[in-house]
């Protein structure tokens, strides 16, 4: 069933604002999504009614705050088909992947081992692995991206057999939109004895994601890209793996016993949540999860596909436009990167902004991929539940205007 976009739009206060004289036409949800009133209100009313530091306190207000925090963890677990103890709250995808790279490095990597990434990774799923590989004397290898914007599967198999201990890759590329076939890639990784770490920043907000069906070992995403507050994100990992891993950050809440010269660790997930967690943001994320579950992630996905289909169709009819990534809308996340012949992406973005249209232009934190594409940057339009087909059409019209002015 199609989602009720007009009804949804009424839940997003920011959509009433204007950008200069024009209404805001926001096509940058892959960078960060807007927040519906129930999420904004949940955070505010947490501060107004339930605010207290979580864990350990004996008074009722703190017990209430702790319950709300843990209930949010439960909601995230349900969303992913996981157990609550497998959900670690962090700031966002970047922290989750730093945590993964650090701890997997400590527990599993040694000299001569291989870490496999891909050419389409966001810097957040590349640079931490560079660092951990260097620290442990491991090799870092990248699966190449084919001209059609997909992973080179034979190269993947080859790299796996070279002593791969961990594979880290995006569920969907934030630049190409490509959705990678995680279940197959996971099976192959596991056959080779490697862990699979999935950067799901662009998929968990947009489609049903079951960690068991994916067959992943760890999975990371950000609350702010899925209608939730900034400052909150999630690392999911298999329970037995979390048990095995040492902490990343240390401090209060994550310890067992502390002496001046040594310390023991709490069980997961607390072991990985040092210090006061972003508990108000976790509560907000829980409400965002409720909101998405209420819409139904199957329908959320169908809406993305509909908009991507329309924009791909429109862009491909314009000969001066080059689109990157798979042709098939169902093979992509809800975003499209493109370039306009002879026009720098920044100029496209600036001219669209004159019409109140917010798209992103740049390297999208994927410099190696942009280099691979042989361009200085790309434009990217990305969609979410509040975007309409009319907005897609307005975007295409504005793109024609920009072309007229700059060609």
């Amino acid at each position, binding site marked *: 069933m199609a989602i009720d976009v007009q009804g949804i739009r009424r839940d997003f206060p920011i959509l009433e604002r204007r950008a200069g004289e024009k209404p805001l036409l926001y096509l940058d949800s892959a960078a960060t999504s807007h927040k519906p009133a129930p999420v904004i209100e949940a955070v505010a009313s947490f501060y107004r009614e339930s605010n207290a530091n979580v864990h350990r306190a004996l008074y009722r207000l703190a017990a209430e705050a702790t319950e709300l925090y843990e209930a949010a963890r439960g909601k995230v677990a349900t969303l992913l088909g996981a157990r609550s103890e497998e959900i670690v709250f962090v700031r966002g995808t970047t922290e989750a992947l730093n945590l993964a790279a650090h701890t997997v490095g400590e527990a599993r990597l040694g000299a001569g081992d291989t870490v496999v990434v891909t050419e389409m990774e966001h810097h957040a799923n590349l640079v931490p692995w560079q660092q951990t590989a260097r620290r442990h004397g491991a090799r870092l290898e990248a699966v190449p991206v084919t001209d059609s914007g997909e992973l080179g599967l034979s190269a993947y198999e080859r790299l796996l057999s070279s002593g791969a201990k961990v594979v880290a890759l995006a569920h969907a590329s934030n630049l190409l939109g490509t959705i990678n076939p995680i279940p197959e890639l996971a099976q192959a990784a596991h056959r080779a004895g490697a862990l699979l770490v999935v950067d799901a920043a662009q998929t968990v907000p947009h489609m049903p994601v079951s960690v068991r069906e994916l067959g992943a070992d760890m999975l990371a995403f950000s609350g702010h890209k899925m209608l939730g507050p900034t400052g909150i994100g999630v690392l999911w990992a298999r329970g037995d793996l979390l048990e095995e891993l040492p902490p990343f950050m240390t401090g209060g809440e994550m310890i067992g016993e502390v002496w001046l010269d040594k310390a023991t660790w709490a069980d997961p997930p607390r072991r990985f949540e040092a210090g006061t967690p972003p508990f108000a943001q976790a509560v907000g994320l829980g409400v965002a999860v409720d909101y998405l579950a209420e819409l139904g992630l199957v329908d959320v996905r169908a809406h993305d596909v509909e908009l991507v289909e329309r924009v791909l169709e429109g862009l491909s009819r314009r000969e001066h436009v080059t689109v990157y990534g798979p042709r098939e809308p169902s093979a992509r996340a809800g975003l499209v990167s493109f370039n306009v012949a002879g026009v720098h992406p920044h100029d496209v973005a600036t001219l669209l902004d004159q019409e109140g249209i917010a798209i992103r232009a740049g390297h999208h934190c994927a410099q190696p991929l942009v280099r691979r594409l042989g361009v200085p940057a790309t434009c990217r339009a990305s969609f979410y539940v509040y975007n309409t087909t009319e907005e897609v059409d307005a975007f295409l019209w504005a793109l024609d205007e920009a072309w007229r002015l*700059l060609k």
Partner: protein
Amino acid sequence: MKGYGEVILEHWRRPRNRGRLRAPDREAVQANPLCGDVVRLQLFFEDGCVRDVRFDGEGCAISQAAASLLTEKVKGKATAQLAELGEREFLGELGEVTATRAGCALLALWALQRALKEGPR
């Protein structure tokens, strides 16, 4: 859609002094790593004044148009006059540029300042 102002469009479409000098006295390359814009500026002096100037580079219309405009402004000027070229004045001549793009508009000017600071090559 308002588009860019006349000055930017004009200089972007028909850049002045684009290319390289055979033997520049001063030269600097300024890049904006955030967006990939690059401008190279070369100066040739005679009797203490800019006798010839060239730019090349890659990037958005604003950065390239600004570089072109700058080459026109520096020609014939003495070093002291060059140092006086202010950001505000330069942006004023270039025409309206949003705050998000000021870095592109000033790239060439920063290259000039660097070339002057770094001294003869």
